[in-house]
């Protein structure tokens, strides 16, 4: 450790002895939009401390003496932050140089820029500015140097962390399969799940297998985005302009090993070491939990202090921050008859109202949480005001937001900084506080606009966005890949029948359908085009026809809910508008059953829809979408089902009319 060494001492050391690190402040993705509209991704708070501080703390703890902070977006904010923090201080244990290059759009650009600037003198540690870790880097660096002696071409040691195939820390973006020669630690094969076009099988080149007595295939590691680089890495980036990401680099090196005369080594962290890059909501959630559970020790809330903020660590992994200044000043932690339990962190100066519940969540500093509020699996950042009787589940509320009374935020809802959510708002999308460049954003409240993701990009990128978009919500469902062997024929049948716990792909598909329909309705697109869109998403997610029927109907019926205002008045114009879609999908009795099942599922959950059921049935019946046999059969099956009792009753009058008018209707339908 070099805590007491001054800069002069550092200079007098031999060049090789200085451990250098490059910290890339930007994550070059829009995973955290709209929160990253105004703030660089490395300054987003995780457990009330910004990611960059976590990263720098770790680097200085693990023996790094000099770090280059590479900024490309929101540079002033990063500089400002550094100036204010202990890293800007002259006593800082870490010599931090800020490098600015606003033209960089990818990691590759950043590396090329660094190469041009010629600041790096030897082996260096490359980390993202959003890394949370406690691993000591020196042994890894040493190992890298040892391997370098044997293999002169060694360019990079990639650091992996153990995470079994169904580990919660296995974010889709980092789900990786690696083949390693155990003797030499050399990486032979590296494939990210999302980069593979075959979802069932992994194809390992025979050449790789036959060239040595044995290889080890690891499907139980994830990429930590930490790497130890030789000097040759920067020129390699410069020589190969197509290397945009670290992934490109790894892939390119493995493919052209001979031409580039470079190789990669793998290092797997032991169980006690922790490292993770917070590059998606999935990881955000996972790392937060890990930190609360103290896997990242000593980087835990009650240890990671800046003198003024001290956390109290209580039973059940609850952390409460206390003001160290006199308790009479405004920094108080009021907790009256409210329940705060299970893995929760509450920042100083926050106030929690009566009979509120906070579970598995992080609340920032100086937040005002009203009475009767329920916050679960959510992250409320500094300075938020949550008014009475709100429910916030699996959502993120950016700093200084105001959530109006009785709002319900759920299922991956993300509020950008300063959003003012109108009272009674219900939603699960991303909101931002200002219009920004486009002025066609939907307004939900005074300072609340629905964020639009770029859907103009190619399909594959769309998928990726979707995944990131929803993974705060879906991450608990472990994706079950069928593909045990050639002979296995399980799954398919049963999974068709009970759809209610929606699987990952169908969930994604459903989101796409909702998006398509919404946009279609707003822009008055022709329904034929929408059908085309839905069909293409169907193939993209491999959703069975029956599920398509069910989900499309659900999406249409759910659409009014996403709009502000009341449900019923919006329902009818939508039904009329989307009638061609009904006609396209609901073609045969089986599809009609699906349609009714969707109706039933939603009506049982939604009081307003329940009242509309008779009219809906009659509309669909009159449009020849449902025929009376199916309706009658469906209705008779509802009888005696205690859960569907209301539905049965509500539909009763229509059924009666249907039975009476049977003859007549038969004529009509012919």
């Amino acid at each position: 450790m070099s805590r007491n060494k001054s800069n002069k001492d550092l200079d007098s050391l031999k060049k090789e002895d200085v451990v250098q690190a490059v910290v890339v402040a930007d994550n070059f993705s829009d995973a955290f939009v709209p929160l990253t509209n105004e703030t660089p991704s490395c300054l987003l708070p995780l457990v009330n401390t910004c990611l960059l501080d976590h990263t720098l703390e770790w680097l200085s703890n693990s023996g790094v003496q000099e770090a280059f902070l590479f900024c490309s977006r929101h540079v002033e904010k990063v500089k400002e932050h550094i100036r204010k923090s202990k890293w800007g201080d002259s006593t800082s244990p870490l010599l931090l140089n800020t490098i600015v290059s606003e033209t960089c759009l990818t990691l590759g650009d950043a590396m090329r820029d660094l190469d041009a600037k010629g600041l790096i003198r030897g082996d260096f540690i490359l980390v993202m500015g959003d890394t949370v870790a406690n691993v000591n880097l020196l042994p890894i660096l040493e190992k890298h140097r040892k391997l370098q002696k044997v293999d002169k071409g060694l360019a990079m040691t990639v650091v992996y962390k153990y995470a079994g195939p169904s580990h919660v820390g296995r974010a889709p973006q980092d789900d990786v399969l690696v083949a390693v020669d155990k003797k030499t630690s050399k990486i032979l094969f590296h494939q990210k799940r999302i980069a593979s076009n075959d979802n069932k099988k992994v194809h390992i080149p025979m050449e790789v297998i036959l060239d040595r007595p044995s290889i080890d295939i690891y499907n139980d590691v994830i990429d930590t985005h930490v790497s130890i680089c030789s000097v040759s890495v920067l020129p390699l980036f410069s020589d190969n302009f197509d290397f945009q990401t670290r992934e490109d680099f790894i892939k390119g090196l493995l493919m052209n090993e001979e031409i580039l005369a470079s190789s990669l080594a793998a290092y797997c962290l032991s169980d006690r070491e922790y490292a993770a890059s917070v590059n998606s909501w999935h990881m955000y959630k996972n790392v937060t939990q890990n930190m609360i559970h103290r896997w990242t020790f000593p980087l835990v809330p009650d240890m990671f202090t800046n003198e003024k903020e001290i956390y109290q660590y209580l039973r059940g992994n609850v952390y409460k921050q206390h003001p160290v200044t006199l308790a009479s000043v405004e920094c108080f932690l009021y907790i009256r008859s409210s329940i705060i339990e299970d893995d929760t962190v509450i920042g100083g100066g926050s106030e929690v109202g009566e009979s509120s519940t906070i579970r598995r969540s992080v609340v920032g500093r100086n937040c005002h949480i009203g009475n009767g509020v329920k916050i679960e699996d959510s992250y409320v950042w500094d300075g938020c005001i949550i008014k009475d009787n709100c429910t916030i589940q699996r959502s993120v509320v950016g700093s200084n937001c105001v959530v109006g009374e009785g709002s319900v935020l759920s299922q991956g809802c993300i509020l950008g900084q300063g959003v003012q959510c109108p009272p009674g708002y219900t939603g699960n999308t991303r909101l931002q506080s200002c219009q920004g460049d486009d002025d066609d954003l939907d307004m939900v409240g005074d300072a609340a606009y629905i964020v639009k993701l770029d859907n103009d990009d190619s399909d594959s990128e769309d998928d990726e966005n979707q995944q990131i978009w929803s993974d705060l919500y879906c991450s608990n469902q472990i994706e079950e890949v069928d593909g045990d062997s050639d002979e296995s024929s399980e799954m398919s049948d049963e999974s068709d029948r009970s759809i209610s716990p929606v699987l990952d792909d169908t969930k994604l598909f459903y989101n796409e359908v909702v998006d398509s329909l919404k946009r279609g309705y707003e822009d008055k697109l022709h329904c034929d085009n929408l059908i085309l869109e839905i069909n293409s998403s169907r193939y993209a997610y491999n959703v069975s026809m029956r599920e398509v029927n069910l989900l499309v109907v659900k999406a249409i019926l759910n659409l009014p809910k996403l709009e502000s205002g009341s449900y019923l008045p919006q329902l009818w114009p939508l039904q009329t508008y989307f009638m061609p879609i009904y006609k396209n999908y609901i073609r045969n009795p089986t599809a009609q059953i699906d349609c009714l099942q969707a109706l039933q599922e939603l009506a049982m959950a939604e009081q307003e829809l329940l009242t509309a059921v008779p009219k809906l049935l009659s509309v669909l019946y009159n449009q020849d979408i449902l025929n009376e046999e199916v309706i009658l059969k469906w209705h008779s099956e509802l009888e005696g089902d205690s859960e569907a009792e209301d539905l049965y009753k509500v539909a009763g009058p229509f059924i009666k009319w249907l039975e009476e008018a049977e003859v007549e209707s038969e004529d009509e339908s012919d």
Partner: protein
Amino acid sequence: MSYVMVQMFMSDDDIMVAGEFQAVVLAAGHGSRMTEVTAGRPKCLLPIANMPMIWYPLRMLEREGFQDAIVIVADNTKSEIQAALEKCNLSIRLDYAALPPGKEDWGTADSLQFINEKIKSDVVVVSSDFITDASLYPALELFRKNEAAVTMFFLKPAEVSAGDSLPTPGPKTKHKPERDLVGINADTSRLVLLASVSDFDETLPLSRGLLRKHPHLQLYSRLLDSHVYILRKWVCEFLVQERSLGTLKGELLPYIVRKQSSKPTQKVEDASTIRGNTKNDIFQFAKESTLVSKVLPISLSNDHWGDMKGTFQDDKIRCYAHIVEGTSFGMRVNTLQAYASINREILQIWEKVTGGNVLVRLHPGAEVKSTQVDDSTLVGEGTLLNEKTSFKSSTIGASCTVMSRTRISNCVIMNNVKVNEGCVLTNCILCDGVEVGANTELKDCLVGAKHTVGAGDKHNQEFLADEDVLMEI
């Protein structure tokens, strides 16, 4: 505690049969990869240090504590083998099963099927050409511990240091061994993949489901399969039904290894289907003993972590593989190259391989008049070595005669061979009944059974045999 453990891993039948395992030695092979030397005698009787080859695996079984073994032989070789083994002082009781002639080629699985009635417990199948000093115990433990269907026994071949080895006698052949691709779960030793390298062209496709179950997989491409297989009794029963599976290595084992990951097909309602036509699924055979099926659900032990699957991932069929670590010796003598090489090495590893058996260097019944017989030369019964001869690192069988002024080094000479005066034999293999004429020089040569090498000839790297034998090859 240990009693319970033992009980737990014994199937019901085991309690009735004294031995937990039955050993089966497969000795009906013709040696199709080394026909040059097997024309005269069955492959399993080829001499290695003047002992028949099959003696080594039998000795190994004895060492591992087996008291009985079933030896499967071809019908026409039974008496010959029996006679040869009776001279060997083995304490293990041997039960010979002769495969009737008529069928041209008995596969290893066919042979096992044939003796089905003799199989009363789990089986250890050993090939008659396997020589090792490694213990079978770790593999047996693996088999017991996991209630495995099959356990295979692999060795890491010794790294051949270039230059030190003499060439294999006979004409140069392109030696291209078949290579297996073996995938083993590094944490549990589960055998997950068994295939031949030649089955794949550019890439090896691995299913993600498989990698999910076995997240850390080790793929080996240069392992030596010892052909020691430990088979659960039901596997033999399954073989009886599945007659199409002819060989163990080529057909049965890859099939079972593949079947591990599949689920039993849904039971068809018995009444509606015609019983005669439906074959029993392999899962009908793969039944755990009642005890194990009771123990497993309540046991807390698990062989993997990170998911909610049961022990063994709920697989009913489980294959395991044991790889011998360290410096153990192991070799399968199934090629000419291997035969030549084992003869050169056997004396150095004799102690380890035979478990301390006394090595008879010069048989008491031999008449050695030569003064130049070095320590690494063996002489068989009734052999006469005349004066003025020199022998280096050679094995000379029974009833041979070597005349004066002859030098022999690095040679294997089988029985009833006559070498006349003034010969120089270097690195040669001489089969039974060969006669070498006077003043002949042979280097790196193979001489087929009963062939007579003309006097005064010089041969280098050749295979010399009577024409009918050559035709066959």
